[in-house]
């Protein structure tokens, strides 16, 4: 019994919530390896939060895909908050960005390195990921995949079961913990082999995130983040900054301030949580959105801000709208303003 327990090898699987990492974990579980999942929360993950905010998205499935995958596989999942450590990856990526602000190669190195630390702390033997050679232009190429293994210091303890046969044998294969013959040789962007394998395992439902697993691959999000850095004069962020970039209309009428205007009730509720941190405006003579003001605004700027917010209220065609302006440090004032016409709001104000 003791001997049998000593031989039970353990792998930690990076679980993104998508199909590939689900399949990779299953392939290794089939070889009688004990597998547990790990999932990193960077603050940019598409998973989870966005659908919780907007009322129109309320009917969408609110499940967290990584948790759901773990439950389908019958494995434990450890979700790790890496928000602070991850900043350096986003701000100073050694290997640069992909199409938008996605530092995919540095990101993968970071995640495998953190999985390695977890593996050592919990006495596991190796790491598995759902990567496939040639599937992604930056982090999943034949020349960049060895960089991830090397720079993360996981080296031959990093096994990619879905394409292992296209890569040199790793420690678990060399040691006979897993049978290389039962691993796979997927490559390229064709998804058919994954879909066939999912069928083979009886997985009829799975998430297929388009483009990438985080907001940094999203063009509109990346432009809001660039705007934040440019206008603040420094590349830095806090969690609240990056969460707010996912919510509302962002309008920057002048370089020194920006408005975040809720688009509907769910966003109003979410922005209410920030009322103590930001100057905020809301129409009181008519039904209208809550807006946060990020930056510095003098009396003239507040008038302009109020007339923009009035534009998105039910009083947009009224002659005057009363907008309440609350400065958490200076108190409450009311401004009577004429709502701006749609044509008075140039496209260039939208961040």
């Amino acid at each position, binding site marked *: 019994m003791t001997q049998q327990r000593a031989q039970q090898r353990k792998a930690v699987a990076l679980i993104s919530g998508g199909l590939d990492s689900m399949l990779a974990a299953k392939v290794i579980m089939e070889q009688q390896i004990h597998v547990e999942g790990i*999932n990193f*929360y960077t603050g940019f*993950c598409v*998973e*989870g*939060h966005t*659908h*919780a*905010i907007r009322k129109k998205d*309320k009917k969408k499935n*609110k*499940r*967290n895909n*990584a*948790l*759901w995958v*773990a*439950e389908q596989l*019958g*494995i*434990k*999942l*450890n*979700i*790790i*908050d890496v928000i602070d450590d991850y900043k350096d990856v986003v701000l100073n990526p050694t290997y640069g960005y992909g199409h938008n602000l996605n530092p995919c190669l540095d990101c993968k190195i970071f995640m495998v390195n953190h999985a390695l630390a977890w593996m050592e702390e919990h006495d596991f033997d190796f790491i598995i990921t759902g990567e496939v050679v040639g599937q992604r232009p930056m982090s999943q190429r034949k020349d960049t995949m060895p960089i991830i293994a090397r720079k993360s210091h996981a080296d031959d303890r990093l096994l990619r079961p879905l394409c292992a046969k296209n890569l040199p044998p790793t420690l678990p294969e060399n040691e006979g913990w897993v049978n290389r013959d039962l691993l796979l040789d997927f490559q390229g962007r064709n998804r058919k082999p994954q879909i066939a394998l999912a069928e083979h395992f009886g997985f009829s439902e799975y998430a297929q995130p388009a483009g990438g697993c985080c907001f940094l691959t999203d063009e509109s999000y990346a432009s809001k983040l660039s705007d934040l850095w440019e206008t603040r004069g420094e590349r830095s962020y806090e969690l609240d900054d990056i*969460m707010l970039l996912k919510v509302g209309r962002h309008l920057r009428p002048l370089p020194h301030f920006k408005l975040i205007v809720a688009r509907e009730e769910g966003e109003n*509720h979410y922005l209410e*949580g920030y009322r103590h941190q930001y100057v905020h405006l809301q129409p009181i003579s008519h039904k209208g959105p809550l807006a946060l003001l990020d930056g510095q605004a003098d009396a003239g700027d507040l008038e302009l801000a109020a007339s923009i917010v009035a534009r998105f209220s039910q009083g947009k065609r009224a002659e005057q709208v009363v907008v309440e302006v609350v400065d958490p440090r200076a108190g409450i004032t009311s401004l009577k303003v004429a709502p701006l016409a749609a044509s008075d709001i140039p496209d260039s104000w939208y961040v």
Partner: protein
Amino acid sequence: MSHGHYELNARNLLCPLPVIRTQDRIGELQPGDQLIVTCTDPGALNDIPAWCRINGHRVVDVSSHARELSITIMVCD
């Protein structure tokens, strides 16, 4: 031995942060302890019970008041 009752404020955090905070807090508790997590993200209603199921803990009560949810978890072995 008496078991403890603990509370966790996860209001205004969006998923998966309420799950992460719950996971970290439960890691410090003993089997038999109860943790009441209060949150405002409706996604937590799925995610916290899912996390409990896969990690062997038990949700013993779920209630909502206004826009707040309270999830009571019994810590298991």
